[in-house]
């Protein structure tokens, strides 16, 4: 009963609508961006892409004259708008809507010469029992003007129907009364190559949208918007500098900016000014082939057990080859790592590796993170080697670079070590002033900072400067009291930043029940078991230190000024405090000058190193 009444109303409305086309306001080429009366804003043809969804399937059909044909013959290399209906359907958001919209689109197509010559409408009935060619022809008369290119088709029987419906993802259920079907309205847009480019359900089926899509298919694909050239690739892509302030503004970089710039070969003929000769490296001078393979491995997330973490996940090229966004990194499955990821700048000159100096060569060191259960989480050396061997992009490359060895514990380590040894950075403003004799290179405040550095502030006692080079580390381990403080007197933070310039003083309920993992860290003692080694950590180099925040072994100090203030107070008193550390009595002005000096230790090739790294695609599961 309901169906028949609906059908009557619908039929009358369709008749009305069919008489209205003379006054429609959708002229071809008119680009309307203002909202329509109901708030709808139509898209501008050609301003967007319609990605290929899949190839439109073929199948045997009958047309409304009773002639046999195939869908592909019906499509005939035209742009096709294809609806799936049954003619007895009365759902207002179903088949009648589809036929109504197709008729409206058809009228507009007739008015547009480009569309008229290229667009065909096709209505497919999935009710071959009831919708005979004769019924289809009668149905077509209600919607199709004689001059329209509009085919009405069905199949000869239900057996021929099933594969077509399956290939177009159409599910139909005959209603219990046997009269109607339960189905979801779906209209397809096909390009002239017979590829599905869009699909519409009732919610999305508006004539102006369909027309925009038809026109878009006749226009050239727009060029992707170019990424604005960035002169600061060595800055974190998600820079949050100044986030504490209400007037913070983002300077975010597109993810797609990585790889948008050509690689410029790194200059590796001689060490830059300020660094020792290559003979002082902790291993062989890197061969380009070794380094290239190592770089690929370094940026491959598949080197972790569950394919989520690369070396570069914690040593990010645009974040000073450390992670500026975390105090301490996060390992596999989110497991906590207790120490700050050390920067890898000039790591080739380090002879004692890790914060507790437990490793001696980079070739060996790389296996530490690979196998640590809270870092990359691999269960065994053999597992890693087998996995890399199984990755299509590595076997041939290893065979080429290490012809007699292939993929072994040694060669994988050698490749990663070689890449890391290319991360040499010097020729800073300080180097040009101190070693290069350019007396104007270093600003006066930084010069005063340098005098403090090797004088009153006594930094040079551990951050050493030699006659012809300066690694700015004594390669020794020291107890500054910071580790002691963390182990013995930990106090929870109560101020938390919750938005730009929004700092909230939390109440106790905020963190009740949250289980922060223990962060105890006894430093060198964990290697030697010597009580006198408690809370001793390795002296880091200060090269590029302006780009390697956060600071200290636990990443607990956010800025260089914080670090200087920490030493100005004499570290933190404890039984094993290094005797070189004592209160410095620096003024605020002097602290600023020291920071100015530290900022002058930035090498001249950070952009080049970042660009070189960004040219390497990230390795992911295929």
């Amino acid at each position, binding site marked *: 009963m*309901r169906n028949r009444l*609906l059908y009557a109303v*619908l039929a009358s409305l*369709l008749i009305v*609508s069919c008489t209205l086309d003379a006054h*429609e*306001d959708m002229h071809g080429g008119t680009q309307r961006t203002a909202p329509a009366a109901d*708030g*709808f*804003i139509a*898209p501008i043809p050609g*301003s*967007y*892409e319609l*990605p290929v*969804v899949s190839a439109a399937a073929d199948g045997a059909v009958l047309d409304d004259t009773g002639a046999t044909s195939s869908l592909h013959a019906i499509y005939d290399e035209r742009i096709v708008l294809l609806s799936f209906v049954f003619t007895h359907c009365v759902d*207002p*958001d179903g088949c009648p809507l589809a036929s*109504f919209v197709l008729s409206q689109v058809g009228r507009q197509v007739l008015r547009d010469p480009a569309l008229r010559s290229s667009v065909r409408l096709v209505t497919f009935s999935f009710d071959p029992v009831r919708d005979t060619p004769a019924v289809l022809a009668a149905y077509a008369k209600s919607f199709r003007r004689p001059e329209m290119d509009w085919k009405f088709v069905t199949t000869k029987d239900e057996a021929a129907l099933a594969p077509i419906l399956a290939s177009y993802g159409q599910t139909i259920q005959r209603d219990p009364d046997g009269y109607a079907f339960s*189905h*979801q309205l779906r209209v397809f847009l096909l390009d002239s190559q017979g590829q599905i480019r869009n*699909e*519409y359900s*009732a*919610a*999305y089926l508006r*004539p102006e949208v369909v027309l925009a899509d038809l026109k878009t298919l006749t226009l050239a694909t727009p060029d992707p*918007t170019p*990424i*604005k050239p*960035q002169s600061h690739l060595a800055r974190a*892509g*998600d820079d949050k500098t100044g986030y504490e302030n209400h007037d913070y503004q*983002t300077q*975010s*970089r*597109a*993810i797609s900016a990585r790889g948008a710039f050509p690689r410029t070969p790194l200059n590796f003929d001689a060490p830059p000014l300020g660094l020792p000769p290559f003979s002082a490296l902790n291993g062989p001078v890197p061969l380009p082939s070794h380094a290239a393979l190592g770089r690929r491995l370094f940026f491959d*997330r598949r080197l972790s057990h569950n394919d*989520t973490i690369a070396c570069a996940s914690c040593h*990010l090229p645009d974040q000073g080859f450390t992670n*500026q*966004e*975390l*105090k301490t990194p*996060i390992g596999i*499955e*989110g497991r906590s790592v207790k120490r700050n990821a050390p920067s890898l700048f000039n790591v080739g000159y380090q002879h004692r590796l890790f914060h507790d100096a437990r490793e001696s060569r980079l070739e060996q060191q790389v296996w530490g993170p690979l196998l640590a259960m809270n870092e990359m989480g691999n269960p065994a050396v053999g597992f890693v080697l087998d996995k890399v061997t199984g990755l299509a992009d590595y076997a041939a490359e290893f065979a080429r670079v290490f012809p007699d060895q292939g993929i072994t514990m040694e060669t994988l380590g050698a490749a990663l070590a070689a890449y890391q040894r290319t991360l040499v950075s010097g020729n800073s403003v300080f180097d040009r002033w101190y070693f290069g004799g350019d007396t104007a290179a270093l600003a006066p405040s930084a010069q005063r900072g340098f005098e403090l550095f090797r004088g009153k502030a006594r930094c040079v006692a551990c951050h050493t400067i030699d006659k012809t080079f300066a690694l700015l580390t004594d390669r020794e381990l020291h107890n500054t009291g910071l580790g002691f403080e963390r182990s013995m007197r930990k106090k929870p933070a109560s101020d*938390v930043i*919750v*938005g730009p310039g*929004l700092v909230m003083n939390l*109440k106790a*309920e*905020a963190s009740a*029940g949250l*289980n*922060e993992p223990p962060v105890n860290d006894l430093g060198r003692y964990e290697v030697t078991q010597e009580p006198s080694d408690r809370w001793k950590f390795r002296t880091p180099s200060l090269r590029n230190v302006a780009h390697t925040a956060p600071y200290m072994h636990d990443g607990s100090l*956010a800025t260089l000024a914080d670090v200087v203030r920490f030493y100005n107070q004499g570290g933190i008193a404890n039984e094993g405090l290094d005797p070189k550390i004592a209160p410095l009595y620096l003024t605020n002005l002097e602290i600023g000058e020291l920071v100015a000096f530290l900022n002058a230790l930035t090498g001249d090739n950070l952009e080049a190193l970042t660009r070189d790294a960004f040219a390497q695609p990230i390795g*992911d599961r295929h």
Partner: protein
Amino acid sequence: MTLKATRALLVSALATFTLGLSPVVSADETCYSPYMAKIVGQEDFMYIWTLGVQGLGDEQDKLVTVDVNPSSKTYGKVTNSLSVGGRNEAHHSGFTDDRRFLWAGGLDTSTIFIFDVHSDPAKPKLVRTITDFVAATKGVVGPHTFYAMPGRMLITGLSNNQDHGGRSGMAEYSNEGEYLTTHWMPTDDALEGAAKSGKIADGYSYDVRVQPRLNVMLTSSFTGWNNYMMNLGKMMGDAEAMKRFGNTVVVWDLHTRKPKKIFDVPGAPLEIRCAWGVDHDYCFTTTALTSKIWLIHRDGNGEWQAKAVADIGDAAKIPLPVDISISADDTRLWVDTWNDGTAHLFDISDPHAPKKIYSQKIGEQLNMVSQSWDGKRVYFTSSLLANWDKTEGPEGDVQYFKAYDWDGKALKPRFNVNFVAEKLGRPHQMTAGAYALFAKAPTAARTGLAARE
């Protein structure tokens, strides 16, 4: 008479005609996914995407089916459990537009599991696993929202493979599981034509909802892999990490997928729910860190605007509003706060001035909420993220799936499935299934099936 007016007349006349028979014949679902089949009657099942836990049961992620039909003999019981292998940080899930398949994602490994839920709604089958999501999308990590579009799925990501931070994008896949394209959230160097209404274009991503009748899509913003995988207590003590939360809602042109306007919405706006009414041009979101309800609305000039319209509890206690659910008549909004395990009901009859009218503690922690179409049945789950969840609390109140009846005044408990005692894991998103969807429904369009999220 214009064409649109004609169509509107056509549709509204028919809608009016059928009003007594079915509540929303002409309106599409705008809050879950437009034109997805809806369950307006009794749902038979809840499919609960569940995170595996080390040391508990088989330790892996699984899709758990619970019988929720009160007339069934197994009402309130786990009737099926389908383990998928590994721990992937099981999180959200969503049906395809025909509701025959359920896509469920892992935020850690970016693996996507596709379940057949129509062949036997009581026993979902794993039919496809997408393992190359990150490579295919050119770097999107952490598939989050699975949102049905005609013939395809829109999938928001939470992170990226470069810095594991919050910059991310949306991917489109065909219903068959083939990758189609990626849309990155606008960043300062790639605004793609979007206007910054404030100072922020962080490129972060979280949820997506669409209003097809307005050709509008909205996205929100959370945080990246580093933070959502990190221990929550550790993160709150890391000032740099706390700066890496999203502060934006983006208005998009739905059809072209181009961003149009970026709103500053500080404090991690998460779930987006749009009003259902055909003249209700607004959506809600809640901010996790600043504990506010925000209204994203179209003003009298047709311009989209954003404003904070209500507080949710005491922000200094970080109640952490998570999932929200809007009623079919646009008058009520459930808001779950995770940290205190409480469900709040807001009267949103005036969307510009929501008023809290009811609160009920559900458990030690509370994340997701789903309600039946008529609002009489409300379901809750507990888990937020593997390394954020609390582990201590009363038996049955830590990791649970709880069913309640809502009589308009109070929640009445019906049953509780203790996911720890059942050795299942941590229950996250719920989606409803029904036999009627695939066999007994007269027509999908007419019955308008769907339990709303």
